[in-house]
């Protein structure tokens, strides 16, 4: 499984599946126990494929899995 898809699955399982459950870079780094640089690279790839959406909340960037991203994750698990 490509690294960014594995990372997408982690974000899905953590529960970042809507804008009200979106997480900051720091929170994602802590949850996934990944290096910040690796997190940033994966986020960038997933934003380009529209599996992750970036929003600005309370002055900081937050990230959550889109509906297409959820479908992608579910196709991995079935």
């Amino acid at each position, binding site marked *: 499984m490509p690294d960014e898809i594995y990372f997408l699955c*982690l974000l899905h*399982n953590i*529960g970042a599946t809507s804008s009200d459950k979106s997480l900051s870079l720091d929170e994602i780094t802590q*949850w*996934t126990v990944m290096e910040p640089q690796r997190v940033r690279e994966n986020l960038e790839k997933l934003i380009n494929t529209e599996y992750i959406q970036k929003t600005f909340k309370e002055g900081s960037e937050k990230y959550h899995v889109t*509906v297409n991203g959820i479908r*992608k994750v*579910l*196709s991995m*698990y079935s």
Partner: protein
Amino acid sequence: MNCGHIELKVCMLTWEFPPRIVGGIARHCYGLTKALVKLGHEVHVVTLEFPGAPEFEDVEGVKVHRVKIELGHPNFLTWTFIFNHFMEKMVAALSHQVEFDVIHIHDWLTTHSGIAAKNFLNKPMVCTVHSTEIGRVQQLRSPDSYMIDGLEWWMMYEAKSVIMCSNFMTKEVIDHFHLPSEKVSVIPNAIDTFEYNKNVNKEAVRRRYNIEPNEKLVIFIGRLVPQKGVEYLIRAIPLIVRNHRGTKFLIAGDGWSRSHLESMAAATGYGNKIRFLGFITDSERVELLMSADALVIPSIYEPFGIVALEGMAAGVPIVASNVGGLSEIVEHDRTGMLAYSENPESIAWCVNKALSDHGYSNWLIENAKKKVNDVYSWESVAKKVTKVYEKACER
């Protein structure tokens, strides 16, 4: 109402229900629950939340309760245990308003909540096995696979009745889990055939996918995982194009093998004829099936193969591997063609025949449509499931 009467109160637990569609379970539960309601049962579905879907909705009489998953965890198995807890809570809350007669769960994913509900409600549990871990991965290797295999055994052990979708699955499960055959009922999947009775502008659909009027269209629809055998279709493509130069191939669906399969497709030298569509909507699925010249189902493992029924209803000639449930649905040379499993030459031979011989293809289509209407309707399946419920409710 109590068991023994025709009308039952059913609590169905499933991790997927439309619009949350993972594989075949969502469509199965959707069709079955609507048909059960038509037979007079009261059906409550407890499932997981999905963006944009309401927490509660009435879908043609089916009461759908979507559970919010309030906690998460990166590990998939841990996550499933968490969502089962929230499903359990929902069943407990519902049980104050509804006196359920039977609990019906689908696959291992809802094992925990199903067994908990069975015990705190003191009602029988029925499970439907759509596939098994040993079948999906072929060999148990990881701790997670062993755990899932154990959960499957536990689910069937706790269930009063076990529903299998094919004789192939029944044999697999009885052999692997040493399940008493008396607990098992074989009830096939079904589809809503009326979805395929609509008029579709085939030319417009084909134009949308850049298929010229003089070109043939061969499609695959399914998850892009090794068990679906898409690599054998890709390897068959040069052998098909050799006979039918103007043929294009659309591969619809997603999965963790996608990038590997895309590379493979490019390496055939016919990458310009092969297009990967990713996830497609249900309406696109119907339109594509109704507009194609052949549907290939090259699975190497297939407990049932509902896409074969969809193809039969849509009127597209089917070329399927002679494995699992597919070999029970498709009658070779009568309702479709069965190719040797993992054999590109055999797949190509069948596709070439379907594309060359229109009279033969039309004959297959007519036979297939009749069979799907006669045997694989949700009404027929719901009646059989009702019998299983009634038997499970006997003390």
